[in-house]
């Protein structure tokens, strides 16, 4: 059971979209934006409030790549591996993040909950490939060296 504040927040989010099935995705998007993940308890709660079968809601949440039942780090780093970025060497950038942060394909988030590293298929800034998005900010023309520097500056920023 989560703290009451979570359910209150969920209620407010549901109220802003309306308690109908069509609002399921926007609602859980907002919840995830709030907590950086989708607590399973809240998904069940939302399903009940929207009068949707819990299994169905779970089916939706697991179908879309963006939803995560695991808490994500403060900085979600999305390494673009779209065609343009791939052709301009995005994989060495990804590998640098993995190496510097001790992460891998299986382990996405650092233990201190500061960083999550994921890949994404296209950020739409292909002219500046390879690109990386940190939360909502796009970083252009990445190299392994710039990836290391980015991590250090984000670490500093989080301590400031």
């Amino acid at each position, binding site marked *: 059971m989560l703290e009451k504040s979570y359910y209150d927040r969920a209620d407010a989010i549901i109220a802003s979209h309306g308690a109908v099935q069509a609002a399921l995705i926007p609602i859980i998007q907002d919840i995830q934006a709030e907590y950086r993940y989708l607590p399973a308890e809240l998904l069940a709660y939302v399903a009940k409030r929207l009068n949707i079968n819990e299994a169905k809601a779970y089916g939706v949440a697991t179908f879309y790549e963006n939803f995560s039942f695991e808490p994500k780090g403060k900085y979600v780093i999305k390494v673009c591996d779209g065609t343009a970025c791939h052709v301009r060497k995005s994989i060495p950038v990804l590998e640098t993040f993995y190496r510097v942060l001790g992460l891998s394909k299986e382990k996405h988030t650092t233990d201190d909950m500061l960083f999550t590293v994921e890949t994404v298929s296209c950020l739409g800034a*292909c002219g500046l490939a390879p690109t990386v998005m940190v939360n909502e900010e796009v970083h252009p023309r990445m190299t392994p060296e710039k990836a290391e520097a980015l991590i250090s500056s984000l670490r500093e920023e989080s301590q400031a």
Partner: protein
Amino acid sequence: MIQTREAMDALRQQAREKLESYDCRILVCSGTGCIATGSERIYEKFLEIVKDVPGVTLEFAPHDKDAHIGIKKTGCQGVCELGPLVRIQRGKEVVQYIKVAPEDCEEIFERTVRHGEIVERLLYRQKGVAYQSPEEIPFIAKQTRMLVENFGKYDSESLEEYVAGGGFKGLERALFEMQPEDVIETIDRSGLRGRGGGGFPTGKKWRQVAAQSEPVRYVVCNGDEGDPGAFMDGSVMEGDPFRLVEGMMIAAYAVGARDGYIYVRAEYPMSVRRLRHAIEELEKQGLLGDHILGTEFSFRLHINRGAGAFVCGEGSALTASIEGKRGMPRVKPPRTVEKGLWEKPTVLNNVETFANVPKIIQNGADWYRSVGTENSPGTKTFSLTGAIQNTGLIEVPMGTTLREIIFDIGGGIKDGGEFKAVQIGGPSGGCLTQEHLDVPLDFDSLKKLGAMIGSGGMVVMDQHTCMVEVARFFMNFTQNESCGKCVPCREGTKRMLEILERIVGGRGTMEDLDMLETLASTISETALCGLGKSAAQPVMSTLHNFRDEYIAHVVDKKCPAHACAAMRRFVISADRCKGCSKCARNCPADAISGVVRSPFRIDPEKCIRCGACESACAFGAIHIEW
């Protein structure tokens, strides 16, 4: 509130006068690309500089000072690679600056804004020539910018500027001078075809929706531009959001819809912000809502954000996602025009298609047909990326050749490389090669060549790109994104991916190539939706155009592009090796042997090509052979 046609005219008049009252406009590019290179900081820097200058007013303050300066955020100015881009407009003269840093802003303000001088070092240069006006830069000069005409000219967040530039004239004409049927007729005669990939005639689609007996209809815009390497629709949504909305309004009027939805992919937060802002502005002015411009036409627009599923770019999956369900395609018929969103007749077009509509209604079908080819009229936007000199968003008439795009507009291959192929149409498309350079690009010619325009992603590849690896890359993408509903796509793409991984891993056989072809034809014949049907396209197309590259991987175990790591062989040069045994101690596969102080040897049978020996060697005695 703008509730009559006269009020709209008055606003347009007023907005034009305001536009002309500027002594100078500083136009900062705010496309995703330039924001990534720091254009927001440039914008703020200019605001800061101008704020404290005596004798200068910002924006539309009373005209009691010497000079009026406008600082605006515009849509994509085109050459993303050279951002942040800034244009300075004084009267009719426009200067384009590239790679502007915050430190340059003072100088730009002092010299160009105040005194009309040019800061030479910030000009675009090509082959020793410096270009002042954006219209002269070869990359832009060789394009036909109709759809993106407002990009770099107007503030993409300002309704006023959109209207001043002729915005909403199309809607006005539709509402006051045309019956819904006339609108459909005009779109039909214009020959506009769906820009999302298939090229289905837009007028025909609208007519089918209008003909349904069900009175509730919807208009849905597909902004789920998922093809990796494509960003045109994103640029339109952020660069000219009002135009997209106007196009959707005209569609709604034509088919009798009262509600519309724009489905924007999750990775485009900027598009969502700009569209939301546009919708709020229009609601405030009464241009979205009930009785628009005092007519019987009422329309509301909603935004849905995607949640990271490529398959939602498919029509029936997209509408399922708006309904709050898993985004899975369904069997057709019934088609979306009969039973789309909530089982109601639905016009589903992509961003670029809708954005083309306002000008067609305003200027007529013949105007539109005057550009492009007979069967594919108009222009097409492409995102030009990869191993090319000038990357960025381009717009050219349908029927332009690949040679013009790559060599005239794109400036040729990056770093003097050699053109090998261009992948067009993303994971559903194919590749075009040297022999296709002079084919006019349009919907039909590309289909014949086993490629497709798709949404317009164009990734250029040079001699360092391995086409087998490209095929593997796309298959990996499609396999990941397969929704899993139908067996041919779910299982077939998996098997194809395994085979491709075998081939790039140096373990492929000639039978594998036959199997790829069998699987490809089975999947494209039997998959449920367009994504499945086209999933094998990149493999088919590379197999057809670059079969010898596949054979080199399979038979000779060589990668002609020197890209596949598994094909490299590590060799110890006997004359450089000191016999220190460090390599052998670092080898995880026990593949290196020798006697200390005499040259060591790598057993290629045991070697796993990891490269540990190469980085361990202190004498540079280990090199790679391909």
